């Protein structure tokens, strides 16, 4: 059949055959029709669900205790090539793209189905780590709501019908040189696809190609144009920077290079006994972000006044910048600016100023001027040509397209993967424009808001199902190779669609990609095959990174800064877990507590407590929110209105609200639709990121939001949400230099002291002698470098088959994440210090949980693991009550109960799927430990340090988590446990945790540190 790819070019043959073997299995499963279900367990006690579950629980297979079930079937492949090893996973290098930019990953493929993504060390944007989005991509692949059929006005159509119609439309256009054809795509870095599009544009010279991303970096390009006269792509060498100033920029969390920047940032902060230096981060931003939480000094300030701040700093460092600015900095802001400026000047050539994409070009230009003045150009910040195939200003593109449609100039509109009907600026009314186009084609993975308005909807293949390529932030190209046989017969990739349009319908994506690269002549034809295999194998094409351009500052006349009146401001920002809304149907990301606010399944209008009280959305009493219900407010931005839940958060600037994009979708799929509030309805093309003159009025109604951390701690004056408990050890670099043990901050933290106990206890170090060597597993986490991005949480979820429970259950505090990230505030509510702490199971040697289990379902292993045996668990939940760290989770319902069989393909075969009524918790990824142990034993050797990497450590962008064997004194974890500033959470309970932490260190600027310091010391 036509799907049959040429077997020669699969990276490994068994891959293909494995897929063939899988094929009948899941095709047959998917043949059955499954209605998409609402978010799992949202309304369990409703009658419908009751009956459904009656069936389910009566057929209680999972983990049932007794008896021999009738043996099931076992499928024997027809053919297996030699290297195939049933039951063993294979790893394939590929890349995941987010708004065009690639992050390299290694996909673990088990028996023909990818089940886990891990970072690719060789890839510049990954360095072996991933962010939460990348981790969750695997769920997108298996999303049951994916579009599977070719639709015309919602009716299923055969492929031929589409091609013939398309061809005759194109034929008509051919005559007019394609003057009526418009192509709308997301930002495209894929050389092959771009090549296809160019071919197309050659054939239709007057056709136009526009790109649109709701979260774009127009301002960055414009900024470089103002500063250097051309569009450039700034790349920051964060590692080299001793002092970093981030202006309204979340560079540690968002953006194509975020993972790399986070790693470099962390590398500049790992303080050890023999490494007592750390960089210093200043952040000025309206709403706390991941970056802001990691800052040593954070200044809450309106987006519209960042410009003034930048200007003040520029003048202070002596950069010559002429720009007209209205408004004044407050004395405090000025003091802050000057202090920062002095610090920057003290670190010429090793300082860095980063400006976020939300800031107008002028501010970017000012920042470039500062960097130039400080001699940072070429040192901490370098520039390349834009990696995009066709650099552009998305906002202009979409505006022009809208105008053209308005003017009726567009007869054929082909959209590859974007969703303008949902995320285009509200003033363009794009949703009303699309139907005006006589012939519109929309290629996307979901029948989303845009598909619904188009004539034709073409289901898009997931990148893991097809061949492709994409560039990283620095231009490095990755070849995307298929990981499994396409789940659905009718899906196409953008490449295939363009090929069809270009009349190369027969060609396979593989040929297209490979022939393109053959054509580049990167290597002599003879060596191409080896080159190709290496590129595919490594996940990067060698020597494709863009060359560094040496640039000199040539400031153009700068447009004036936005008027910084004192009016009420609204700020739009990409959602921390849904980005621009493309992940709306990804339940992992929906349920991942947002890094800053710890809210799931919704976005809210963030504001400061003061503002909230002025608006009357919360009373003046100390507790801001009644349990989980937040007041609804109506937001008016020049004529457009939106009702959203108001939510006070410490550290937000007054007289402003922040709304995250990406929610309030209507056709995202069964899980994404109808969650949150659609901020795009307020966003206009002239105020893409922030707007002044906003009115907010209370509606009197309330709205239930799901949070994983109680909010009772919002109160006036000084916050301390740890309630002065010895949960974290916090100190400053200065204090560390004076006393690495930080004694003065250790309340109840006995410094590696043995507390008295009634029992002899088990001594695990008795296994250190080589004759009878036994491992002792432990973990050390460094909160100083943890930025709280949540990648570990999703990685854990993917690795351990952790179910999603849905908003209702989160509201009832039954979220199942094995690993949570605690967030604590200290200091003035207006701008508190914030501390984050990843909390997995502590694997206490004196585990309180084990003692109280009546059936020995949780006991210790010889290697000191706190084992949880699901199939023995009776479900008394006493262990959870008795766990001081509250890391145990209980299956109140049968959460892992997939109505859609496709989701079964996602599950990790090495981890038991927990049934109803059992406790579960972090196991230190015992499946990985066992796998490594078995390998080692077969090879009669010891497990090497670093051979076992738990999912969380694997994913962590900053490598804040280290796992290993403490019976081996040379292992990294042993070395970390010897660090003076090590502490154990709630040490005084004498639970002897195997998971320990290093102190959270900060590097405040003495000039500013007064309050920061007070807050730091508790």
């Amino acid at each position, binding site marked *: 059949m036509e799907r049959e790819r040429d077997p020669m070019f699969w990276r490994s043959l068994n891959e293909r055959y494995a897929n063939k073997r899988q094929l009948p299995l899941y095709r047959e499963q998917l043949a059955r029709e499954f209605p998409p279900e609402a978010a799992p367990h949202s309304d369990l006690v409703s009658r419908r669900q009751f009956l459904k579950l009656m069936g389910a629980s009566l057929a209680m297979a999972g983990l049932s205790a007794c008896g021999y079930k009738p*043996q099931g079937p076992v499928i024997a492949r027809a053919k297996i090539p030699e290297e195939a090893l049933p039951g063993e996973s294979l790893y394939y290098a590929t890349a995941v793209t987010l708004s065009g930019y690639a992050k390299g990953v290694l996909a673990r493929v088990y028996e023909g189905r990818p089940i886990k993504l891990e970072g690719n060390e060789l890839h510049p944007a990954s360095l072996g780590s991933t962010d939460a989005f990348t981790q969750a991509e695997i769920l997108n692949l298996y999303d049951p709501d994916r579009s599977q059929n070719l639709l015309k006005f919602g009716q299923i159509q055969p492929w031929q019908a589409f091609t013939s119609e398309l061809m005759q439309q194109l034929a008509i256009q051919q005559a007019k040189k394609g003057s009526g054809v418009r192509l709308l795509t997301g930002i495209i870095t894929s050389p092959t696809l771009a090549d296809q599009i160019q071919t197309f544009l050659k054939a239709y010279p007057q056709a136009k190609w526009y790109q649109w991303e709701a979260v774009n970096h127009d301002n960055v390009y414009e900024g470089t144009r103002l500063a250097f006269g051309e569009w450039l792509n700034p790349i920051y060498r964060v590692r080299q920077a001793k002092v970093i100033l981030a202006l309204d920029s979340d560079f540690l969390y968002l953006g194509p290079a975020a993972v790399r920047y986070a790693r470099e940032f962390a590398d500049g902060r790992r303080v050890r006994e023999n490494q007592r230096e750390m960089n210093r981060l200043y952040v000025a931003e309206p709403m706390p972000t991941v970056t802001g939480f990691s800052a040593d000094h954070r200044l809450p300030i309106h987006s519209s006044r960042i410009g003034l701040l930048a200007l003040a700093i520029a003048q202070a460092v002596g950069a010559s910048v002429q720009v007209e600015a209205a408004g004044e900095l407050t004395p405090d802001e000025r003091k802050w600016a000057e202090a920062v400026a002095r610090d920057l000047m003290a670190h010429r050539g090793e300082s860095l100023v980063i400006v976020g994409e939300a800031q107008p070009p002028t501010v970017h230009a000012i920042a470039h001027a500062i960097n130039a003045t400080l001699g940072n150009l070429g040192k901490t910040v370098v520039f390349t040509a834009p990696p995009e195939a066709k650099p552009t200003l998305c906002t202009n593109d979409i505006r022009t397209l809208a105008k053209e449609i308005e003017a009726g100039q567009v007869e054929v509109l082909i959209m590859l993967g974007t969703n303008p009907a949902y995320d285009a600026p509200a003033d363009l009314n794009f949703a009303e424009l699309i139907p005006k186009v006589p012939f519109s084609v929309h290629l996307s993975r979901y029948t989303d808001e845009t598909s619904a308005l188009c004539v034709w909807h073409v289901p898009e293949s997931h990148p893991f199902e097809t061949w492709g390529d994409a560039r990283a932030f620095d231009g490095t190209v990755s070849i995307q190779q298929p990981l499994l046989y396409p789940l659905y017969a009718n899906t196409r990739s953008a490449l295939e669609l363009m090929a069809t349009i270009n009349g190369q319908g027969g060609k396979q994506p593989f040929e297209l990609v490979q022939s393109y690269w053959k054509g580049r002549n990167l290597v002599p034809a003879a060596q191409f095959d080896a080159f190709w295999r290496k590129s595919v194998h490594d996940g990067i094409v060698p020597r494709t990174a863009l060359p560094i351009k040496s640039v000199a500052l040539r400031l153009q006349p700068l447009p004036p800064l936005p008027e910084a009146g004192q009016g009420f401001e609204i700020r739009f920002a990409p959602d921390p877990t849904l980005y621009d809304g493309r992940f709306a149907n990804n339940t992992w990301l929906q349920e991942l507590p947002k890094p800053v606010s710890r809210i799931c399944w919704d976005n809210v209008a963030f504001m400061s407590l003061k503002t909230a009280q002025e608006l009357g959305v919360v009373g003046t009493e100390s507790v801001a929110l009644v349990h989980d219900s937040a007041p609804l407010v109506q937001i008016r931005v020049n004529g457009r209105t939106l009702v959203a839940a108001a939510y006070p958060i410490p550290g937000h600037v007054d007289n402003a609200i922040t709304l995250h994009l990406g929610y309030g979708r209507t056709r995202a799929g069964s899980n994404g639709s109808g969650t949150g509030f659609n901020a795009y309805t307020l966003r206009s093309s002239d105020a893409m990121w922030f707007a002044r003159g906003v009115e907010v009025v209370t509606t009197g109604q309330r709205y239930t939001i799901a949070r994983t951390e109680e909010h009772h701690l919002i109160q006036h004056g000084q916050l301390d949400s740890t309630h002065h408990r010895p949960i974290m050890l916090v100190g400053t670099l200065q204090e560390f230099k004076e006393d690495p043990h930080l004694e003065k901050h250790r309340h109840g933290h006995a410094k590696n002291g043995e507390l008295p106990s009634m029992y002899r206890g088990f001594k695990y170090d008795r296994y250190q002698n080589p004759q*009878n060597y036994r491992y002792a597993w432990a973990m050390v986490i460094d909160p100083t470098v943890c930025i709280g991005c949540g990648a570990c949480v999703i990685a854990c979820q993917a690795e351990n088959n952790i179910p999603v429970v849905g908003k209702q259950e989160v509201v009832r505090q039954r979220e199942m994440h094995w690993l949570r990230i605690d967030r604590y505030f200290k200091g003035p509510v207006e701008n508190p210090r914030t501390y984050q702490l990843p909390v997995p199971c502590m694997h206490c040697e004196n585990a309180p949980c084990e003692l109280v289990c009546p059936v020995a379902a949780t006991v210790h292993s010889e290697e000191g*693991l706190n084992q949880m045996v699901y199939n023995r668990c009776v479900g008394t939940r006493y262990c959870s009550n008795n766990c001081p760290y509250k890391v145990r989770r209980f299956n109140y319902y049968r959460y892992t109960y997939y109505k859609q069989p496709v989701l079964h393909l996602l599950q990790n075969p090495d981890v038991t*799927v927990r049934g109803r009524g059992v406790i579960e918790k972090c196991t230190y990824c015992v499946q990985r430990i066992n796998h490594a142990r078995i390998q080692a034993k077969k090879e009669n050797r010891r497990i090497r340090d670093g051979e076992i990497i738990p999912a969380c450590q694997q994913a962590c962008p900053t490598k804040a988590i280290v796992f290993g064997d403490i019976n081996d004194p040379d292992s990294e974890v042993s070395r970390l446990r010897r660090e003076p500033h090590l502490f154990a959470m709630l040490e005084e309970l004498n639970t002897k945790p195997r998971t320990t932490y290093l102190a959270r260190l900060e590097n405040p600027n003495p000039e500013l540190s007064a309050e920061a310091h007070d807050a730091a010391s508790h």
Partner: protein
Amino acid sequence: MAQVFKRYHNTVARATIGGGLLALMALIFGGSSITRSPWWTRAGEPPDQPVPFSHKHHAEELGIDCRYCHWSVTKSAHAGIPPAEVCMTCHSQIWTNSPLLQIVRDTYQQDKPIVWNKVNDLPEFVYFDHSIHVNKGIGCNECHAGIEKMQLTAKSQPFSMWFCLNCHRNPEQYIRPKGEVFNMYYKVPRTAEEMRALLEKHGIPWNGQLPRNQQELGALLVKHYNIHKEQLSDCSICHR
């Protein structure tokens, strides 16, 4: 007052009590022995199969090594059900048109899987790894006893937790030299000569005292193969 009961009712009453107690015991012991019986555990019950494959014929009569079909057993957790390909290596030459093998031929030509019925089925929360067992000297027929004698394949052990623990607690009683793992006819050496021969054959050093029986041989091998006995009864060894 008139008697409510007859004289024999005394006997009845006592008999009832005694009988009740007996019945209770019978219930307990009966129950526990039933759950261990093959009738419950399905040990020795060959399930129906699409192809009437005989291990007796292939393994015993033809003497084909286990690994010829289950080649992944030494490297992977799964021993692997051989693909039709493997069957065809021989059956493309012999029995080329036996009706019994029709399915196999179709499978091979149409490249679609054969669906067998599981014989040894572990619960989903138990993780058994073939490779480590065969690499540490646990013979195939410790668990698949008498497989080489089976016309139709059935599981020969209940595979209850108790069964597994039995060996995990004292492997000495079951372990054998690695080289003998696939030998279906391996016997524990009776005489010192045999023992010495065995150990020399597999190059297993013994210092001083030559093991006299399985217990001692086992102890020697456990040490030699560096098996951590205490660890083997950890929950997470089998349950994750």
